[in-house]
């Protein structure tokens, strides 16, 4: 799938600051609000935290995929952020997470929502590719790396 349709240069960040799971989620949502992608901050946060309650989206090898479904968005909103220091995200392997992929999708509308998560996950499935992503210094570099393939 074409990630350019979903990602834009102002929804990829190399410099997430928060040092907790809740902090990272709030920071990403706040940045999406300032990027003009989301207007209802609280509804979105509620959806993401509701999903985290069922099962943490901290996967393995530093990757987390916080996501949620809410009608506060009309179409898929997505973001990719890095926190190179690593954050405890209740991950499956207990390792701190450094790569965060977030999607907010509408409740009822059809669309390739999970497919976006899966596509990004596939792109960074191998250690070498994750290292390349973590080596990015600017927002643009991440954008180029993810959408250039």
């Amino acid at each position, binding site marked *: *799938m074409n990630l350019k349709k979903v990602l834009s240069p102002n929804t990829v960040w190399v410099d997430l600051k928060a040092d907790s799971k809740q902090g990272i989620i709030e920071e990403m949502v706040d940045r999406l609000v300032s990027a003009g992608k989301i207007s209802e901050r609280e509804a979105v946060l509620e959806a993401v935290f509701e*999903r985290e309650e*069922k*099962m943490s989206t901290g996967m393995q090898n530093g990757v987390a995929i916080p996501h949620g479904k809410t009608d506060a968005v009309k179409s898929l909103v997505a973001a990719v952020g890095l926190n190179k220091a690593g954050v405890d995200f209740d991950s499956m392997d207990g390792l701190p997470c450094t790569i965060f992929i977030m999607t907010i999708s509408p409740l009822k509308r*059809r*669309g*390739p*929502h*999970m*497919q976006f*998560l*899966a*596509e990004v*996950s*596939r792109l960074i*499935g191998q250690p070498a590719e994750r290292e390349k992503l973590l080596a990015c210094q600017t927002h643009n570099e991440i954008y180029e790396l993810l959408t250039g393939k």
Partner: protein
Amino acid sequence: MHEPAATNLVHQAGEVAAHAAEASGHSITHMMMHLILQLAVIIIVAKIGGYLFQRFLKMPSVLGELASGMVIGPYALGGMIDLPGLGVLFAENAGFAASAELYGIATLASIILLFLAGLETDLAAFLRYSVVGSFVGLGGLVFAFVLGDGLAVMWPDNGIDSFMDPAALFLGVISVATSVGITARILAEKRKMASPEGVTILAGAVFDDVLGIVTLAIVMGMAKVSMDGGEVNWGEIGIIAAKAVGFFVIVTSLGLIFARKITSAIKKFKSTEIIVAICFGLALLLAGLAEMAGLAMIIGAYIMGLALSRTDLAHEIEHHLEGVYNILVPIFFCVMGMMVDFSVMKPVLVFGAVYSILAIFSKVLGCGLPAFLTKFNLRGSLRIGLGMLPRGEVALIIAGIGLASGIIDQGIFGVSIMMTVITTMLAPPLLVKSFEGGSGLRKELEGGSEEIETIILEFPSRDITEFLLHRFIRALQDEEFFVHHLHTDQPTHRVLKDDIAFTLIQDGNKLQVNVPSANQHVARMILLEELLSLSDLLESTKQMKGLDEMGSDLMSGLFA
């Protein structure tokens, strides 16, 4: 003085037009009534014949449908049944066993058949084997043409003494055209369409079709010139040949390049029925264009199917056309059977028998040899040779052209029919038999397909598995996947979208997902989300009224 005369003339003209309309209106209704009755007989008899052959003779239903046609055709029972007010049920029509209307429906059926054959072709495998396919097609073509033409020259007392004699050239070209339709249906029935042999046969048949028509065009050109007593005009032959080859190469490439764009544009209609109908319309369009370019219509239909086979719509189209296919395609085979006139075959029986035997050997050797020299073992090569054996509609059409243009006489036309019938009747049982046993590929080429991951989830009961399977399918559809239910013993679904394809199988209380490694992320993630959504469901059942209370609500007042 002039005015009344003018008015009178206008009146007369009007009356003539009205009479003509009345007459034609009457005859059209009459023709249609006759056609509908013919179709009724054909469909019922062909279906029953197909069933009987399949059930009791363990042969493909195709043969039963052909045999039904022979029985009810104008040269057998059909010619004896006189309908009051309509005439003979099936009458010969200008040397043709079917009326134009009936033949039109059979033609439509052959287009559907080839369109679906194209759709069912795994293009990745097609391209992988197409080099072999081209050698197979070319080998069969050269062997068949030379043996067919040569026999006519060698046979004593038939007045043919030159390899370039028009009738000899026609006997050559008639024995060239393989009828992929009959083979395709057998491959589909036996689920061998996607096997290396199946793909090679279909690829070979495409080359065979194109080269066969090119050969026909060349032969027609040569025949015309030599009948006029002149010399062969190579320039003209070159132009006809270039046109035929060019159409195939250009249209197939364009189709493949633009298929995704075309389907995404069509998908804007959101309704599967409209999408399927438009795709079928495009197949008909390309079939017509192919005919206009001097190729056979079925080639255009096949190319359209091939172009769409790589899109996620392929299974949807197949699924929706299945009903039409089941009714129309038996009509095609039945009409083919009706074309057989036993009385014409009597005087040329020996020549016909030798011609038929050579037609069999020419394809088995001509197609089998290139296959054996490339990727296949003896078993695989035999399957390919036998798959290329049947001559069907194209051979009959070419024979018809020859008869109509006076190049071949009624006798040679009879021989062509005999060869077509024998090869068509021999191929299915031989082909089915040959597909018993193991792989037809050489040992070193077996396997090597892309890695498939199997995910198995086990649930406490079959009910829960079924419930989750349906939830999972709905979630996939929400993600814009096409989910296609296969008619197999175990509930099996094929999931498709662009390049992603995987299968879901419910095996008792287990849910099995077979997915290529490259696409496992999306399958796993959607599965996980659906599993998690179960917790919402469990939560919501707690909010239900007590079951006792609900039950007594339902039952109260029933026994006043």
